[in-house]
């Protein structure tokens, strides 16, 4: 499977088909593991890293149920390809931008990926559409078991799974849920809601992981604590809170519909209009407008566009995706034009009743 093939298809979490998927985009669980017989990545020699990469790749290859996985040597990829994987959430930004021998194994349906030599030797992540933590846990736990039978993990009884950064030690598990909260943003309740989360040791980040703005009203909630609780407890901690947040967002949306449907409809329609007709448009503006349109679809104010299409547009209008789909490298100005073209084509198709979605 080549990267170009990935570009065309609809990744698992883009489907918008999981539970509560009007508000919950995806559920993600990540496990951090290290091999016992090597230093952590930062203190590795080049030779160590090469050996770790080879060992893990070979052992992963011996698992029969993973025969269809695609393995990529991230170090050998072009920047645009690495960026493409980041946009698709298959690797982290750190993995893309660091140096040295490193790779990633990707599931064809994009439900999971395994990064080798990121901050730790092995980072396995599972991503499901919608609110689906229990089954994501089952899957990632199973993957962990399969690998663990073939290597020796760095582990001790007191501190659990040993990781390069003490913030991950113990279970090595990061549970995250990505939410779309445009109504809470419009009604200015978002700050208050998010502020309450650190009190129960949950962290909030903007779209696309560490340290970014909350672009497009997407927020990622994850656990801060990884030690001293079981994996189930950490999952429950988040899955108890998410329904509360969903409820707040739904109420805020109801409120907007009741109190100011006309304004809301206007906002959403204008967003749709700009996206359909702009000649050049930045990715920031696109995110912002797509967010309004997405809410509009959820609330039934926009009829002729599906959730899957919108989810896809979020991804396909990102810089690397645009270039991969077009098959050529583009500078910023050209990308802004290409983005506008792409939006017009895909939104107008919907209007004319043609459905570009074959999946």
């Amino acid at each position, binding site marked *: 499977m080549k990267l170009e093939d990935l570009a065309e298809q609809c990744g698992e979490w883009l489907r918008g088909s999981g539970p509560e998927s009007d508000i919950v985009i995806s559920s993600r669980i990540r496990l951090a593991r290290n091999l016992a017989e*090597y230093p*952590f990545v930062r203190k590795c020699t080049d030779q160590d890293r090469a050996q770790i990469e080879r060992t893990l790749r070979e052992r992963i290859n011996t698992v029969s149920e993973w025969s269809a996985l695609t393995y990529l040597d991230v170090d050998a990829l072009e920047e645009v390809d690495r960026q493409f994987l980041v946009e698709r959430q298959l690797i982290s930004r750190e993995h893309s931008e660091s140096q040295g021998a490193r790779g990633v194994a990707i599931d064809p349906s994009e439900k999971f990926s395994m990064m080798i030599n990121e901050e730790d030797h092995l980072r396995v992540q599972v991503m499901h559409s919608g609110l689906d933590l229990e089954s994501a846990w089952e899957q990632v736990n199973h993957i962990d078991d399969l690998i*663990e039978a073939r290597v*020796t993990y760095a582990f001790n009884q007191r501190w659990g799974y040993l990781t*390069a950064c*003490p913030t991950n030690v113990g279970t090595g598990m990061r549970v995250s849920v990505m939410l779309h909260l445009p109504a809470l943003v419009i009604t200015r309740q978002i700050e208050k809601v998010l502020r309450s989360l650190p009190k129960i040791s949950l962290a909030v980040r903007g779209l696309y992981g560490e340290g970014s703005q909350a672009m497009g009203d997407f927020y990622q909630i994850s656990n801060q604590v990884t*030690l001293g609780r079981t994996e189930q407890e950490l999952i429950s901690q988040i899955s108890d809170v998410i329904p509360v947040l969903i409820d707040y967002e739904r109420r805020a949306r109801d409120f907007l519909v009741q109190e100011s449907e006309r304004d809301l409809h206007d906002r959403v329609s204008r967003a749709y209009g700009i996206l359909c007709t702009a000649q050049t448009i930045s990715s920031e503006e696109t995110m912002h407008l797509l967010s309004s349109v997405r809410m509009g679809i959820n609330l039934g104010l926009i009829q002729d566009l599906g959730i899957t299409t919108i989810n896809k547009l979020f991804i396909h209008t990102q810089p690397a995706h645009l270039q991969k789909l077009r098959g050529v490298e583009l500078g910023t100005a050209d990308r802004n034009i290409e983005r506008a073209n792409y939006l017009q084509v895909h939104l107008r198709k919907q209007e004319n009743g043609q459905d570009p979605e074959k999946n």
Partner: protein
Amino acid sequence: MKCQHCEKPATFHITELTGDTPVELHFCEEHARLYLTQAQEPEEVAPSLAGVLAQQLKVGQTAEDLAQLDQRACPVCGLTFYEFRHVGRLGCPHDYVCFAEELEPLIVNIHGATKHVGKSPHHGARGTDHQTRLIQLRREMKEAVEREDYEKASAIRDEIRELENRHDKDKDEDEDEG
């Protein structure tokens, strides 16, 4: 509660005890990092949360104590505590053993706990001293080569081979039994 410097939620609550009375400060992650990082070390790569806290936690009583602690290095990977404090990443699994005492307050600060209660690996939980020794031997061999002490390097390489073979044999026996 909001960060003192911006509109983001405060996730760091720091009590400064350097003055006459304790002062409570509240920051978001970004401003906490700015507040706690005094000087930019040339080696520094985006200090992580752990590094920043490690810098601030007064692990030793005095500056001399801290200086002495900073010199301590892990025998297996060579990481010094100073390095850890500034980069926020550990060097090898053995660091959790040799710096256990110093890491404990930091880990309590982050997780509110010091004992793992979650999943354990089915195999290999019997201890990984053997693997730790391998890490140390490889490092010693590399240093011997750098010193051009090829005789020593050769001896270490033999020891490594022997350990690896013995381990494979043990593993095979394990599998036969298991």
